[in-house]
């Protein structure tokens, strides 16, 4: 049976998201199959454009793993990431895409379980939303994420 496995791009802060991902791997926790992790030196490095480009190029959802608030090594990088994400969500709504495709998760270095669970939840929510309509429109038959046999 053909199923839709959402493609998720995760921008991971190297101070929190990346160690949490490594922790999840060490604990052998399963994460969604179609996941691309993009390490960034700080969540604040994630430009608004990165979020849009990920969707424009076919991701079904994007998540930013940032340090907890008031716990950023670079002072307010996590807050900047949050502001940019809100700005991008606002833009998505205006152009007709679901803002839920973008989200941010504050996470600690040792939160491997939270990392895996958050991604699993996101994959479930994205399945409910359906594939990124941009990919469907550009080439309905070539959607990379539809057609994988479960």
């Amino acid at each position, binding site marked *: 049976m053909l199923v839709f496995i959402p493609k998720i791009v995760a921008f991971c802060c190297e101070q929190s998201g990346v160690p949490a991902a490594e922790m999840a791997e060490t604990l052998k926790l399963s994460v969604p199959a179609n996941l691309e992790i993009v390490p960034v030196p700080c969540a604040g490095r994630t430009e608004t454009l990165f979020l849009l480009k990920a969707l424009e190029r076919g991701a079904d959802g994007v998540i930013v793993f940032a340090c907890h608030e008031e716990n950023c090594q670079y002072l307010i990088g996590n807050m900047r990431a949050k502001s940019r994400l809100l700005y991008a969500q606002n*833009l998505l709504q205006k152009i007709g895409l679901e803002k839920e495709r973008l989200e941010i998760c504050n996470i600690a270095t040792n939160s491997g379980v939270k990392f895996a669970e958050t991604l699993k939840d996101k994959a479930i929510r994205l399945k409910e939303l359906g594939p990124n309509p941009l990919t469907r429109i550009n080439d309905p038959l070539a959607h990379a994420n539809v057609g994988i046999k479960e």
Partner: protein
Amino acid sequence: MQMLALRSDQMIKAEQKPIEEILTYLDPYKKILLSGCGACVTVCHAGGEKEVSLLASSLKMARNLTGKPLEIQEITPARQCEPEFAEEIVEIVEKTEGVEAVLSLSCGIGVQTLARFLTKTPVIPGVNTVFMGETVSHGVWEERCQACGNCLLERTGGVCPIARCSKQLLNGPCGGSSKGKCEIRQETDCAWQLIYDRLKSLGQLDKLREVIPAKNWGTESRDKGPRRIVREDLKI
């Protein structure tokens, strides 16, 4: 002479137009050139290189969703309001096949400069030019000058009553000023309170005794049409 590493061309403040409005303007076109400007609108984050990329991505997605793809070529010249740069853009438009219109994220001046040179291609504004102002803090800009044509700042301690007093009063505050704030908008400082405080700290309160005559709007401002500055010594 000490040189400061500051740009001198960053006084004009603008805001991007709502994307819905821009999409309406672009509806008839399939391929456009999106031009930002490396000067004022870059500093106020309305039309620099970053904003060009962001808008291009948004527009492409929006048009793909409606089934009418839009091809966008991006460019951000150092300035758009000078002939040398405008001519470069014209060259790009002429050399690029199929460009039907130019969407400009420069201020209204840049749009008009480009329109002057691009005789057969529409130039569409992507931002609203709002005022001449100062960066108060990151992400906050405030109006500071209205180009009235005859600067009064020497007499008002460097605070402009034309740009910063809601009623443009030239000789003291109105009766609505309260606790240093303007009655028109509570978050706005009363310009005349600022002028008083500044002259006091400079020890120049006596300047307030001089009456500033009503401005001659007819000759100083644009009430007689667009103004023009000519420097014969600089002409080629």
